[in-house]
């Protein structure tokens, strides 16, 4: 009888053999960004064309390759150079009618009008750990994940390590939660492992809701098994036999691919009873979120899984002690789990060597806004904002100047040009008045009004507040009203003073993280761009030319 590990080896050999036999590989990005530009039609056209021309090549749909602004993105990996990344050709903006030309070029020169260099800083400056497979494997095939070394870390841990050793390895890696707050992951696992009581639950928070953030979606769409493997390892480490993935329903493709991944993993015996022939059991289920941002807050998420209204409750007790149905519960974010398999596969020392002293590893960012190369990137912690925005992102458009970058979504802040050289790590961003957050990075140039930006985020918090506690429910609405008055030119210093005090009060007294951080976009813009607020208030003038500051004070209708 073959063990599961041997079976994984056989699958790997078979996939590699098939890939070699198939010849060249054409990868078409079919993640949500490119798919919205009809990359599925491009894939079909390429498939039809290869069949017609009898070219020795396989066309596959893959996950996100990063450069979303250039979609639909297609890559061509020549057969001879499967291991040599430099030989990979990248194409941008590919249309179905480009298929004949592309297929014809397989043996010859690249199609010049579509080609983009894989030597662009956008690609060369990145370090891919979480996204190592994204864009390179078919996310709907467990075999392809296995062929990249997938589920080996799990088998190794199950067979060779105790749960405590797994926790120890994660602690030693220095991994911190990628959902936003940066709590040490190893410490969280150790706490849940230590708490007595059964059953225990493991939950994956995939309720990614920040405006401008699509990291978790891309991971789930591009490499879902990595998240499952991370969760199974976590469940082993803490002793859980039931788990939930709380995934927002607005991500139908991620729902579909994760569903396939769970089925495939069950079929392989990597989920369910007696995983890999050991005594470990784990059942994983998807729970769909109905579009409430607050359900990303862990206690609200738990309430939602339990079937209640998704509202947070005061902590303590923390979910580690009393979480889902009152049981000890581990909640981590998608990207956190996605970091777990490589840490166990390559060792905590390898991981801890990436990044900075207090922020280890890499971080995935969704780069968007007024930047040339919008898309999904992964960089080592400690890279400066300038390198990310100007080298990788390509800077702002011609004729415009960079003004600020917003990190951390509605809980974060805006960092001005003067601070572009700070390293991107949890502590430096915090010092600059923002947060790492889940990885949204929105670039703004001189055409962005910072008061209006603050107002946008406040509107978001206002409409996403669950309404349970007064400071968040009524406070965000009031702050939104005051910001509106500033942008329409009817505010005085009295309104600004009230806004400042409300920021302090809402931040200090709100029940959960949503309200506690809701004032951050206002506070950080007040800190760095107070002159813009004053221009609206004193001169009734919007420096960026965005707001119409001509409303009459008598007609204030808010």
């Amino acid at each position: 009888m073959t063990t599961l590990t041997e079976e994984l080896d056989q699958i790997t050999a078979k996939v590699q053999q098939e890939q070699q036999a198939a010849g060249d590989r054409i990868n078409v990005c079919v993640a949500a960004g490119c798919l919205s530009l009809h990359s599925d039609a491009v894939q079909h056209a390429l498939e039809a064309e290869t069949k017609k021309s009898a070219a020795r090549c396989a066309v596959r749909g893959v996950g996100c390759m990063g450069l979303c602004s250039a979609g639909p993105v297609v890559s061509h990996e020549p057969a001879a150079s499967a291991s040599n990344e430099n030989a990979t050709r990248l194409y941008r903006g590919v249309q179905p009618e480009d298929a004949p030309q592309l297929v014809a070029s397989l043996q010859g020169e690249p199609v010049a009008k579509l080609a983009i260099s894989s030597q662009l800083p956008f690609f060369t400056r990145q370090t891919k750990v979480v996204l190592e497979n994204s864009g390179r494997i078919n996310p709907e095939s467990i075999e392809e994940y296995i062929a990249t070394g997938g589920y080996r870390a799990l088998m190794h841990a199950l067979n060779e390590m105790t749960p405590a050793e797994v926790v120890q390895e994660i602690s030693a890696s220095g991994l911190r939660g990628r959902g936003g707050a940066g709590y040490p992951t190893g410490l969280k696992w150790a706490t849940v492992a230590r708490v007595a009581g059964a059953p225990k639950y493991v939950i994956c928070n995939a309720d990614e809701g920040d405006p401008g953030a699509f990291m978790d979606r891309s991971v789930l769409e591009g490499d879902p098994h990595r998240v499952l493997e991370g969760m199974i390892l976590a469940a082993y480490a803490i002793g859980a036999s039931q788990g939930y993935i709380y995934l927002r329903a607005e991500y139908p493709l991620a729902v579909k691919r994760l569903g396939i991944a769970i089925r495939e993993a069950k079929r392989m015996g990597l989920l369910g009873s007696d995983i890999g022939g050991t005594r470990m059991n784990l059942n994983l289920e998807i729970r769909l979120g109905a579009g409430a941002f607050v359900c990303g807050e862990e206690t609200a998420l738990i309430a939602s899984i339990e079937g209640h209204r998704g509202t947070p409750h005061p902590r303590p007790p923390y979910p580690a002690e009393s979480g889902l149905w009152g049981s000890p519960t581990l909640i981590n974010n998608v990207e956190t789990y996605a970091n777990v398999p490589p840490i166990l596969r390559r060792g905590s020392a390898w991981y801890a060597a990436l990044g900075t002293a207090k922020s280890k590893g890499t971080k995935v960012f969704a780069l968007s806004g007024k930047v040339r190369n919008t898309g999904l990137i992964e960089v080592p912690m400690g890279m400066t904002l300038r390198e990310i925005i100007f080298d990788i992102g390509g800077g702002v458009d011609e004729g415009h100047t960079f003004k600020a970058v917003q990190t951390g979504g509605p809980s974060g802040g805006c960092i001005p040009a003067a601070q572009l050289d700070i390293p991107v790590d949890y502590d430096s961003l915090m010092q600059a008045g923002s947060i790492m957050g889940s990885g949204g990075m929105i670039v703004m140039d001189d055409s962005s009004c910072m008061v209006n930006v603050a107002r946008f985020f406040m509107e978001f918090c206002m409409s996403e507040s669950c309404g349970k506690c007064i400071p968040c429910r009524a406070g965000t609405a009031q702050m939104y009203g005051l910001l509106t008055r500033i942008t329409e030119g009817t505010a005085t210093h009295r309104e600004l003073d009230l806004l400042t005090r409300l920021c302090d009060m809402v931040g200090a007294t709100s029940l959960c993280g949503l309200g506690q951080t809701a004032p951050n976009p206002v506070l950080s813009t007040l800190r760095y761009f107070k002159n813009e607020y004053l221009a609206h208030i004193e001169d009734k003038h919007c420096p960026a030319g965005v707001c119409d500051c001509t409303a009459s004070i008598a007609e204030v209708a808010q």
Partner: protein
Amino acid sequence: MNEKKTLATTWLDGCSGCHMSLLDMDERLIDLSQQFDLVYCPLVDQKIFPPHVDITLIEGAIGNEEDLEKIHLIRERTRILVSLGDCAVTGNVSALRNPFGADAVLRRVYGEPTGTLAQVPKIGLPKLLSRVRPLHDYVHVDLFVPGCPPSADTIYTVLSELLAGRMPDLSSVAHFG
């Protein structure tokens, strides 16, 4: 020469009930009146708000453009401005129209009762503001006297303390709202 303090009172968007309560001080008013000169009041025949007033009691909220103009002028000319009664302090009954809007009020008052011939007067009616708001939304207020209306006792405390040069403590005589 004149060491008496000057006192002004006026009503804006209100019902004049606070002034009735003021008169309810009865005979105490006679004693009190020895201590001030009443320089402006809806109950006396003075048309122009005088330039320097020590204490002004304002009843009612800001509901139309005339109120708005008045309150800025009064604030400019007054040392101690008092919001007298709930309409001045919170908007109260005057502000009940706010959820419906000014147009709905005009239609109801001038339109519905008299049928098709009805129309909103074009002259002599100050333009209504979209929202009725308390005084302190527009100007700095020095003292808030709640009540609908504030009792005669409360007003007596307010006036006698202010005339004596002290800021009254209303925590034991008044109730918010």
